[in-house]
């Protein structure tokens, strides 16, 4: 079974993000970038399936600027077999990503696509669902356990009330939650091997996908600074402040 995993290049989770001076977005110049942690879980799951003999080949796909190659290399060092970069400098919103992935999937014909449930930069949590809908495939989102049974897939999902297990027909789209697995470190020998694995480069134009953003970002702001607390002298004063300053009652 061929697997496809989507990996996104994001600001590293350790970096304290800063808003650009013109409020058009988040500062990414000279900032450490790495693979979206949910996507690492996706790669790890795919590699485990291959190690278990369930999967035969893993293709890692990333979309965006040329440096996304580094993110693909990380996936290759973790155990993916080859990479595809859909290269563009354009802003990519979830719908465009889903359409591009669909185009790649139509070429590659994988049986299973695994993605992170969301990316830690925009927290959209939309791409996997959109992709499944566009493909007309089954979807198992927020997976904390995935098991292949013949032509079917058992996915345990983390839902508000607890865990829900669904049975999907393959081909399918799975998005990963945090508890699915603990991703491995890419070892030095595998980093060296990854250098020799192929990465193909495509473009949105070649795939015939219009990636024009449908949404406009008006402005990005830092969350308001937390104000220092105040001690109140009496319940009356507290009620007064809640009513007239905080205006919550």
């Amino acid at each position, binding site marked *: 079974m061929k697997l496809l995993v989507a990996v996104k290049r994001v600001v590293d989770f350790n970096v304290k993000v800063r808003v650009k001076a013109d409020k058009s977005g988040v500062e990414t110049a000279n900032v450490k970038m790495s693979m979206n942690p949910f996507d690492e879980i996706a790669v790890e799951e795919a590699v485990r399936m291959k190690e278990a003999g369930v999967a035969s080949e893993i293709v890692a796909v990333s979309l965006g600027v040329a440096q996304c190659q580094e993110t693909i290399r990380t996936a290759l060092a973790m155990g993916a077999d080859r990479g595809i970069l859909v290269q563009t400098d354009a802003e990519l919103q979830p719908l465009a990503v889903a359409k591009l992935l669909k185009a790649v999937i139509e070429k590659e014909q994988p049986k299973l696509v695994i993605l992170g449930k969301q990316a830690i930069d925009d927290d959209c949590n939309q791409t996997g669902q959109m992709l499944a809908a566009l493909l007309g495939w089954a979807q198992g989102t927020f997976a904390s356990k995935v098991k292949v049974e013949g032509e079917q897939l058992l996915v345990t999902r983390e839902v508000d009330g607890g865990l829900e297990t669904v049975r999907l027909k393959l081909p399918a789209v799975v998005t990963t939650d945090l508890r699915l697995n603990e991703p491995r470190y890419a*070892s*030095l020998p595998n980093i060296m091997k990854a*250098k020799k694995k192929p990465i193909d480069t495509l473009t949105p134009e070649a795939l015939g996908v219009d990636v024009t953003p449908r949404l406009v970002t008006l402005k990005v702001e830092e969350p308001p600074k937390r104000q220092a607390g105040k001690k109140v002298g009496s319940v009356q004063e507290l009620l007064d402040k809640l009513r007239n300053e905080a205006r919550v009652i």
Partner: protein
Amino acid sequence: MPLLSRRDLDFLLFEWLDVERLPRRERYAEHSRETFDAILDLSARLAEERFLTHYKKADREEPVLRDGAVRVIPEIREAVAAYAQAGLLAAPFDAALGGAQLPHVVHTASMAHFMAANVATAAYPMLTAANARLIAAFGTPSQIAAFVGPQLEGRYLGTMCLSEPQAGSSLADITTRAVPDGEDALGRRYRLSGSKMWISGGDHDLSENIVHLVLAKAPGPDGRLIPGTKGISLFIVPKFLPAGSEAPGARNDVTVAGLNHKMGYRGTTNCLLNLGEGVAHRPLGSAGAVGWLVGEAGAGLALMFHMMNEARIAVGLGAAMLGYRGYLLSLEYARQRPQGRPLAAKDPAAPPVPIIRHPDVKRMLLAQKAYAEGALALLLYCARLVDEELTAQTEAERRNASALLGLLTPVAKTWPSEWGLAANDLAIQVHGGYGYTRDFDVEQLYRDNRLNPIHEGTTGIQALDLLGRKILRDRGEAFARLREEVARTEAAAAADPALAGFRQQLASAWDRLGRVAQDLVELGGDERALWNATAYLSAFGHAVVGWIWLGQARRASASLAAAGKDEAFYRGKLRACRYFFEYEMPKIGSWLDVVASLTDVAAGMPDESF
């Protein structure tokens, strides 16, 4: 918070030391900037997620000795295993041994992360790699197969056993006996008996086996040990006899007599080992620790120095990184801690400012930056010399690198140990009372770092090595080579008017250092030359780091002019260089005054007058 500044590391490796050129050499041809970046990313992550996480716990929960075996917290085992599984233990070794032929300078930069995160846990892989390298260099093929492979996989961990309870710095006085016991597939076999003290990693539950490299003396024909260092041989003494021996898996006659309870570095077990007690374990049916001779009999100390020199540089790296982490922690604290108002502020109701706004706090931070970044740069330079020693194009270049490395080793060990510790002292000071509590990491950094001027040769021993062996006995030959390197940096800085003052200051410090050394050479073996050797080492160390700082400043100045971005970073480098030349370089003169005067103030002090 990061363990070190990756921006600084990238600057040192790729702007200052030109490491990107190394893959042009055959040995490193499989590598590229891309793999170097990936390895540094991996190191940062592994260090933060597996080493830093038990930094305090390993200090709080010391190793214990129970039923004759030493136990450590499980996190150390997981960390060491993760390090080995990531391929980092084997990284710099030859491909034939399963290594990745990673340049030493990149491996050192990788190791810097682990030292910063948890120096005590990092000691296990550090010692193991040095042990394996010695056996790989001087062992027989069967010894290499039995011990190097398993060490590089992390299944066996290594130690070095030199000191004894009565003989530490003075190895000539060791009394561990090695009696010939025939020959087997692993070479000339001996039975060892004696006690070995201060053995880091001497026992633990981290690995299948422990490979001790032991110095011992074989008795002469009269049955007596040969006095002095000439009688010393080197033996491999594993805790369990390995595959390839006559009794694989048999417990060797090595027992833990006790654990040392240390001020810091507590995650590294430190043991008194007894060899050849013959009570609990009798391998191959008789008493005596089974050991195999490495190299020639009587050449033990020279071979051990192969490992010792590597360990000394690693000690310097650990000291540098403890200083570095304290710097970053106190920097963050100073940016967040509001206290007091600017000196000129008149309004007592104005809000307090972060303490980083106070000039004296800035001074303490700048001093730490100058010490920590200077020390790391020095260690990376030395690691680069190891690469030159191994892969430079001509024999002359390789020999030059060896000579420089030999001369710089006592400095690479001592300077970071002394000044990294001074940086940790300032890190506590910046934290004020909080720094003196165990709620913050800086007190532990200080305690951990306090070992570094002691082990692998104390500062006093390093001073004798530098002045006695590396300068006087060498008659200044290696010194002259280093002076040429310094002159090259001076010449390169000459074009930059902003650096002219530093250049002159550096040149005059080095000229005086050379004159004083020459005067001491001319004393012709008079012991007065060594009376104030430590002051000479202090002066020499500062002059070396001044040179390292001028080199960094020149690079920063050029990059600043060319790139036009990252201005704050480069200005920080230039400022730290300026700090070093304004605050630190003047100390050289007073140290050299003492040396040049041949004063007997300390050496001549009568014992009874203390």
